[in-house]
């Protein structure tokens, strides 16, 4: 076989190999130029229960590995512009090691950036239950509720919780008040601001609380006046300028916060024009 015929076969096969390689290279280049890179749905990591079973008791070590996977996944960039496996990965880490504090904070900051608000809040709720003395967790949760979900009631609860926790940002106190101010029950908000003014030793926070308290008192006074006038006369007040036109006020009052005030005729509430 290895005689002249064998060498001839080998030479022919060698040439055939080079030719077929050239042809397949050409085919790949052609396919790449016309087709998009395949979009494959990202994978979910294995369940925490299965990893726990496979870790043979080294659950925290498995959590560490899962955490490294998480930050590598997040740090690696994402061509699809969304880290869809991130929630599952962080949840896996904290399920494997619930005492690992940082993933709660990490998820609380990162997940809302890609629109996973409820996932972030669930994670933060678990973190708050595990670490009741970490004021950052309810603070982040309050920010998500207020900024992303526009849910002042939920935000107020979180911010109030943060304000009671040592180590939380000082702004938690003010933000709780702001969230309460936006709620229907403004008497609670007023009580919150007065509480801050009476107890806060930080002059910046106290001064800011005074401004918010004054704003709220102005708003409440205007709303009370409008309710009275509407009840007494058949001609309802349609905007704050009407109060001036009818000689009830010398001018439309401004909010101590610096923004103009407007009347929302649909709700009957006086609001900031922001």
């Amino acid at each position, binding site marked *: 076989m290895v005689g002249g015929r064998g060498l001839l076969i080998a030479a022919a096969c*060698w040439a055939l*190999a080079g030719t077929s*390689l050239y042809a*397949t290279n050409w085919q790949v280049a052609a396919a*790449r130029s016309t087709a998009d890179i395949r979009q494959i*749905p*990202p994978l979910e990591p294995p369940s925490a229960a299965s990893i726990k079973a496979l870790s043979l008791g080294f659950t925290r070590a498995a959590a560490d590995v899962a955490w490294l996977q998480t930050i590598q996944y997040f740090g690696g*960039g994402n061509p699809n512009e969304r880290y869809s496996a991130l929630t599952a990965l962080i949840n896996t880490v904290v399920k494997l090691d619930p005492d690992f504090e940082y993933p709660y904070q990490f998820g609380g900051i990162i997940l809302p950036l890609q629109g996973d608000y409820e996932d972030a809040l669930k994670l933060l709720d678990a973190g708050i239950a595990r670490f009741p003395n970490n004021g950052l967790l309810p603070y982040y949760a309050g920010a998500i509720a207020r900024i992303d979900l526009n849910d002042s009631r939920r935000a107020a609860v979180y911010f109030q919780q943060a304000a009671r926790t040592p180590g939380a940002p000082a702004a938690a106190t003010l933000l709780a008040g702001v969230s309460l101010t936006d709620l229907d029950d403004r008497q609670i908000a007023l009580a919150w601001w007065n509480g801050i003014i009476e107890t806060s030793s930080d002059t910046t926070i106290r001064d800011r609380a005074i401004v918010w308290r004054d704003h709220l008192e102005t708003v409440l006074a205007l709303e009370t006046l409008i309710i009275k006038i509407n009840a007494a006369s058949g001609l309802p007040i349609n905007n704050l300028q009407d109060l001036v036109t009818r000689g009830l006020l010398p001018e439309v009052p401004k909010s101590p916060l610096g923004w103009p005030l407007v009347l929302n005729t649909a709700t009957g509430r006086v609001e900031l024009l922001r």
Partner: protein
Amino acid sequence: MFKMRWWRPPLSLAGLIALSAWQSRGLLGGAILGVVAGLSARFFATASLGQDARVMIDLLLAITTIGSLAIGWLIATNLAAAEQERGAGLLLASKPLTAGQYAVGRWLGIVVGSALIYIISALVGCLIASLGQQMPLAELSLSWLTSGGELLVLAALANLLACWTTSSLASFLTLALWFIGHSIDVLVMSSGWQFLGYILPNLNRFNLHETYVTATGLPGTFYVLTGVYALSWSVVLVVLASAALKKRTW
């Protein structure tokens, strides 16, 4: 009188080696390899650039390919080496084989033994890795078969190397050449020495990432040509092994 066909002794030898793979619990080894590959792929797949499934497929099939080849090769060469150490072995003593027959038979044996293990490990690995996931299995299978061509070439390479050294060292050398073979594109195809990429075994053609992910819409002839490439190189290497065996003193 019964006339022995040329291809019968090599097939007998191949069957013996394949049987040895079975008797050595090679298939169990393949299944365990598949479990390791599948779990590794699932666990580590989320780590790179968000291209989770791509990495998973690459990793999974690369592990099953090289792992099953390593197991199959060790089993096959241990048997072949044992025969050599006994002084040409029972096979050669009872029915003299030509160097060509021996080279072909051993290569086929390695291929069959490795392929059995590869099939088992890839099936188990794919099953574990794809549980609950959406993967186009038809295309995945094609990529998997493409990777099987690599197994043919590597088996032929290991077969050739074993003509000069021990089976274990030949396995390690094959592994080293496997890495180099995958780097051919990087080493020469982007330089002024592109022709070397066409005259050396370029294992990057079996790159699963390329066939499965980045080059969608490849025609069927691509897979045929890849198979031709694998077979052609296998023949070249088997002929070289045959030549080396012929010069060897038994």
